[in-house]
């Protein structure tokens, strides 16, 4: 990342609503058009903001940020590992997604303007015709039916009240993963990428691990080696003089 863009990270961290919003803000702040190149350019800043805010994020929201992070890394990894044949993920490209998102953001500004015009159109609150002093109970309603209804209401609240624990379980933060890799490396110096993924439960975790690995590469704490296009990647810890340590 060039120094100039690093200096510019002063985006208010509370003000973005989602990963696409953050990405769009970063791109627009740099007055870039929405292109793959521009998206790749703001990747570092995106990851930095994510690192700084992930702690306060709801797990489900964090997952959404990571999905976008994974896509960003796809772009990035093409540059980092040119010999690695990174396949397109399924779904639309980030560029297309962002362009579409921006159209709706623009449309929402128009709606906001309409809204502020306060041209509220009123409908009748009361039914025409008189109807006062009636008592019209639901004829067949009995207390046991009310009991059943109340139990159903309470049951429907369960998913709202209880933060989905499975999601929390599935997710672990980027920071934790980075630490995990660092610890593994401290013991083993050199290891296969596959081993890092041994603990990964699902795609999201694989993505997170990969993401963390790239972070370490960037911070020059590790080096990743791959012998052939489809070979296992090897992760090596850097020594202080910045040459990879080996077991020899």
């Amino acid at each position, binding site marked *: 990342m060039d120094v100039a863009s690093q200096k510019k990270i002063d985006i208010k961290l509370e003000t973005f609503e989602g990963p696409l919003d953050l990405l769009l803000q970063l791109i627009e702040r740099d007055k870039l058009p929405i292109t793959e190149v521009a998206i790749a350019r703001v990747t570092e800043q995106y990851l930095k903001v994510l690192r700084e805010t992930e702690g306060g994020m709801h797990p489900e929201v964090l997952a959404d940020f990571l999905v976008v992070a994974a896509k960003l890394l796809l772009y990035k990894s093409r540059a980092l590992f040119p010999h690695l044949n990174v396949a397109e993920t399924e779904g639309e490209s980030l560029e297309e997604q962002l362009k579409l998102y921006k159209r709706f953001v623009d449309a929402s500004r128009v709606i906001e303007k309409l809204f502020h015009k306060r041209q509220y159109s009123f409908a009748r609150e*009361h039914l025409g015709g008189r109807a006062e002093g009636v*008592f019209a109970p*639901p004829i067949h309603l009995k207390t046991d039916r*009310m*009991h059943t209804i109340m139990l159903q209401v309470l049951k*429907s609240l369960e998913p709202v009240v209880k933060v989905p624990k499975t999601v929390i379980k599935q997710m672990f933060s980027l920071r934790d993963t980075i630490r995990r890799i660092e610890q593994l490396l401290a013991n083993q110096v050199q290891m296969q990428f596959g081993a890092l993924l041994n603990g990964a439960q699902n795609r999201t975790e694989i993505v997170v691990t990969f993401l963390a690995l790239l972070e370490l590469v960037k911070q020059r704490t590790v080096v990743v080696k791959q012998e052939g296009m489809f070979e296992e990647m090897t992760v090596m810890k850097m020594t202080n003089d910045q040459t990879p340590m080996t077991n020899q």
Partner: protein
Amino acid sequence: MSLISQLESFLFISNRPLTVRRLAELVGTGEEAVEAALADLREKTNGEERGVQLVSVGNAYQFATRGEYAKLIAAFVKEELVGEMTRPQLETLTIIAYRGPVAKSELERIRGVNCSLILRNLMIRGLVETVDGQDDAHDPMARLLVRYQVTHDFVRFLGLTSVEQLPEYEQLSKHEFLEAMKQQGEKFSNAVISE
């Protein structure tokens, strides 16, 4: 902005007949001009194709549906007001019975949907009332504090003397999920205020 169309919107939205004087006040013009415009409006609504007519009672005006539809309309109004109750209505009534007195905002958080219309209907049916006659407060802040409970008539209709006799009242009325929802709501409104 034409005078006629302004008058039409006031007459449409009003629950009651409006006098010429009141209308003149509302649109900020002289009574004569209003009278002339009303005559125009009346003529316009008298056509065959219109389902609503402008009628006058003394010096007051109001829109009314065409006389020939009276029966149909009466049946519709009755059905809307006191027809068989829908599931959302029964659900709202039940929550108010177990949880009352309960604020509209809490009720809405529990149900996850806006309850204005249903509450109004339950009140018209004499099943639900506001506590301390806080009914229809126009001050939005005061309206937030309005609490709803079921009426004595409804409790009696169920064959009870108090809502506490509802099955499992103790456990259900203070159920942890309901308490949690309430706290979420308080957190939420605090957050909104502090923004």
